């Protein structure tokens, strides 16, 4: 059974399902809007699925929209919307601002 990829978990033990509902966070709505806006040119649904499936297990296990965020960044780097270095620099800048504001 070593050929099963990490995401391909149909039939595997998965624990109980949490049926509770919750309101989406603003950033979760934003990332959904971004996905829809970039659509077929930069973030086709099949491409996003592929990017999600290609995540390392530790990233695949992130909550739903965090997982989307990591996969979308990987896809956009691949497509040349920005480089990994540009992304890392921007994230460092955001982190610094958050720390300064704290």
């Amino acid at each position, binding site marked *: 059974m070593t*050929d*099963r*990829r990490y995401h*391909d978990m*149909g*039939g595997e033990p998965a624990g109980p399902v949490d049926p509770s509902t919750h309101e989406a966070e603003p950033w979760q709505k934003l990332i959904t809007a971004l996905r829809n806006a970039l659509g077929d040119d930069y973030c*086709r649904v*099949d*491409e996003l*699925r*592929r990017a999600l*499936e290609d995540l390392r297990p530790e990233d695949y296990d992130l909550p739903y929209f965090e997982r989307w965020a990591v996969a979308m960044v990987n896809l956009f780097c691949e497509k040349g919307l920005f480089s990994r270095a540009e992304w890392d620099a921007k994230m460092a800048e955001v982190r610094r601002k958050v720390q300064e504001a704290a």
Partner: protein
Amino acid sequence: MTAMFKVGDKVTVKRTHPPGHRRTPFYIRGKAGIVERIAGNFANPEELAYGFDGEPRRRLYRVRFMQTEIWPRYDGPAQDTLDLEVFEHWLEPA
């Protein structure tokens, strides 16, 4: 383009594990079922996933499997079935 299979044909899902984005889940590979309907022709998502146009379109079938065929320890009613849509290039005559 004529369909390789018709409704009622017994088919087996290929037991293969190619890398990349594949639309056939692991649990169904190698299992046999019956063609329930021909769902139509669709751009190949296994190509769309890498930015290609998905042409030529692939025929998609809805295949009906017995749950007891899929899960060795299935303890529900013996007549339970599972319907799954599988592309023609994943199927072989059983």
